[in-house]
């Protein structure tokens, strides 16, 4: 009851903020629980997207694959209900003083959901498969700090020397350099443990025959249509999961999801923009809104190596030119203004960071200093969904006020991602970064390191001083949060992009569904239950 009140209060604040035109108060992301856990029942949800794969190594960067892989497969360590990392297949683990050796003590009697034993061989196999060049996993690079990984990945070694099993209940991972967030990387979907026997039986279509040791097992997967998960009877945490079944309908349109939720067919739904008033502000569902402050930062990117964006003054000017509060209003208050790269949920976020206020005069002065007193014209590439279009139109109106005349190039998502990184295309673009693991290093390294130029460094940002500090941050254990704040302030001053906002996700649940949005894995079915009132 207390938590319901908190949600309602947050909503109230959001609406007040909307009326007064300032950013809403930060939303709590605590689980919404109704009474003590109840065992049984089916959790039913529908997604606009498809489920690309249940193969952990092939999970791309889409929320659907991540959540479903996590429901079916276990890892050495995993997230708790928040950003904390806790033992999963490993009962406990220790990190050596130099931060280079991770020793995992496994639980006793681990089994896959078909009853076959899960051994250290399966664990070693899963890591070797993940990094095998032939697997071509989009996540393999995250593990390149494991000793021997580089040799294995370029084919000069037959296996990863840094992962060993001294006996049947211990696994040891050696790193090349300390990596304070290494446990977070292990908790990603990629390093989930697969059954060696099963993978060898179905080498071509393991996604259709996913066999793991997670809380759920795949009852049926009809590609493009639905995924049905059933409780894993052999799950190693007694009493969990609470749900008997999880049904996920795929490729369901916005209108249909909302209608099915209103009919009571679905346990939860996301809130498409068109349904915002009805679901979030209407009296029927408002008490059951669940929200999560996402670890995202939305920005207006610029090609930093090309005129006029090679001038820091121009980039700073555009930061002053854009009215960020207005953007948050356009999102129905589902966001907070970004004054730094690190989003609010992550350690190192600085609530007092200044960022760039909306100041048209300053913007004009800076443009004049840079030699663009009369402005210039450019083009913004954006995905053509309704919300992006609204945001980009508002930005374009703001830029026009300082003499920057932009045309909007709205394309579908695939075209956007296929072209945004090209050096000679997309001089400006609207997109975001969502954390792969909850450490600000992910934001700095992915977006700003020169080796990622053309990939995740879509800006071709290059700043030797910032680069050195990012590399230092990689292995820094002492004073990490302070270092992140200092680095963030320095990066903000160089204005690699226009800082826009951090998003807030809202879902609506049925009154009897205990549900929360996990900050990294989104849906954590193992923690949900239906009280069946």
């Amino acid at each position, binding site marked *: 009851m207390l938590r319901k009140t908190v949600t309602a209060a947050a909503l109230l604040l959001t609406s007040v903020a909307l009326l007064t035109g300032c950013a809403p108060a930060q939303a709590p992301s605590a689980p919404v629980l109704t009474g003590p856990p109840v065992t049984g029942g089916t959790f039913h949800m529908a997604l606009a997207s498809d489920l690309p794969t249940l193969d952990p190594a092939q999970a791309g960067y889409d929320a659907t694959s991540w959540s479903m892989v996590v429901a079916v497969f276990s890892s050495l360590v995993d997230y708790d209900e928040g950003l904390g990392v806790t033992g999963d297949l490993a009962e406990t683990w220790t990190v050596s003083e130099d931060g280079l050796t991770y020793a995992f003590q496994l639980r006793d009697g681990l089994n896959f959901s078909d009853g076959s034993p899960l051994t250290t061989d399966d664990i070693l196999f899963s890591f070797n498969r993940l990094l095998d060049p032939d697997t071509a996993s989009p996540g393999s690079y995250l593990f390149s700090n494991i000793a021997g990984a580089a040799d294995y990945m370029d084919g000069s070694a037959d296996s990863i020397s840094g992962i060993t099993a001294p006996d049947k209940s211990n696994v040891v991972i050696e790193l090349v350099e300390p990596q304070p967030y290494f446990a977070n990387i292990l908790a990603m979907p990629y390093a989930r443990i697969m059954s060696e026997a099963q993978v060898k039986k179905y080498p071509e279509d393991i996604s259709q025959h996913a066999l793991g040791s997670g809380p759920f097992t795949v009852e049926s997967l009809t590609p493009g249509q639905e995924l049905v998960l059933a409780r894993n009877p052999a799950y190693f945490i007694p009493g969990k999961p609470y749900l008997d079944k999880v049904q996920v309908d795929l490729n*369901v349109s916005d209108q*249909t999801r909302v209608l099915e939720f209103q009919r009571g067919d679905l346990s939860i739904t996301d809130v498409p923009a068109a349904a915002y008033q009805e679901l979030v502000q209407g009296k029927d569902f408002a008490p059951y809104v669940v929200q999560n402050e996402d670890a995202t930062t939305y920005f207006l990117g610029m090609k930093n190596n090309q005129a006029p964006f090679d001038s820091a003054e121009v980039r700073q000017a555009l930061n002053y030119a854009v009215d960020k509060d207005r953007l948050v209003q356009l999102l129905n208050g589902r966001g907070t203004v970004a004054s730094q790269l690190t989003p609010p949920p992550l350690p190192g976020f600085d609530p007092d960071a200044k960022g760039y206020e909306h100041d048209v005069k300053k913007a004009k002065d800076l443009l004049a200093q840079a030699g663009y007193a009369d402005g210039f014209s450019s083009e913004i590439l954006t995905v053509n969904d309704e919300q992006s279009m609204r945001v980009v139109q508002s930005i374009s109106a703001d830029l026009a006020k300082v003499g920057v005349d932009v045309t909007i190039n709205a394309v579908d998502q695939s075209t956007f991602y296929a072209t945004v990184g090209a050096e000679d295309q997309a001089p400006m673009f609207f997109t975001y970064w969502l954390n792969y693991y909850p450490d600000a290093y992910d934001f700095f390294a992915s977006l700003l390191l020169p080796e990622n130029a053309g990939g995740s460094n879509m800006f071709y940002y290059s700043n030797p001083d910032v680069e050195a500090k990012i590399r230092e941050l990689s292995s820094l254990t002492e004073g990490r949060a302070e270092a992140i704040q200092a680095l963030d302030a320095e990066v903000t001053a160089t204005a690699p992009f226009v800082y826009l906002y951090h998003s807030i996700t809202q879902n609506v649940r049925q009154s009897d569904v205990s549900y929360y949005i996990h900050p990294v894995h989104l849906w954590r079915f193992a923690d949900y239950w239906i009280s069946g009132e």
Partner: protein
Amino acid sequence: MTLTRPRAVVPASGFPRFLAGRLVWLLAAVVVVVSATFVLIYVIPADPVSAVLGGRIQADQIEAIKARYGFDLPIWQQYLRFWGGLFRGDLGFSFATQQDVGQAIAARAGATAALAVAGLLLSLLIGVGTGVFAALMRGTWKDRAAMGTVVLGMGVPPFLMGLVLVFVFAYLLPVFPVSGYGSAAHLVLPALTIGLTGGAYYARLLRGRLVEVMDADFVRASRSRGMRESAVFVRHTLRNSFLPVLTWMGMDLGYFLSGVIAVEAIFAWPGIGTLAYRAITDYDTPMIVGTVLVSAVAIVTVNLIIDLVYPLLDPRMAHR
């Protein structure tokens, strides 16, 4: 209303030659369609891996993954590889959905066929019923009312019709499921969407033709020979008016078998249409080529069958 579609010509020299000719034509159509699709893919210089991972990981990793799936090869090599695979019964691998293209299409063929057949049957039922009614009532207010409704049906796009049906029959009166696939109840609203929008064409087509034939000399002759009116209508008028309907059916069925995207999308119907649509938006080239190929084969095959049926309705055609 005259028939503009070139009719099948079965030469006197025999049926086997006709069939062989048609099969060659089918193969040629497939080659042309696949080649044209490859040209289009070449014109749009993007690949499935960049479309999914571009801007998200390092550029050289994207290159490595492209190489793993052969998307780094020149387009002509990819083209040859496709034909090589096709001869082994392999349509390739879809990167975006991580599945075998042939299996993905096969898994959806049933849903597409069910919707195509049910949708066509409802179109015919509604269209032929309305068309015959209007023709019999020609010139009266009932004719005008029926044809007015038909024009409305033709004007409403399927996605709107689908949404209206969902709102009425799944939300206001929760008789049918909102969306999904699996039972006969799931089929009703999507098939009705096709039936209501598609039936209108048949109604107009058939009414026009019926009114024309009703005044034809041979019909009047039958009537004057004392044949009962109902027999005249069924044996002469209707039969002679049905050829354009059959032609239209052939085109519809071929089109439905390649997936009715709008209807599939509204009802989350797991058919080939949404598969193709997603493939296009994902730059999933092997899936694009696969679905285009299957659609081409479906359209050509259905037209072949229709050509074989013509002579049964109109014996004159067998002798021409």
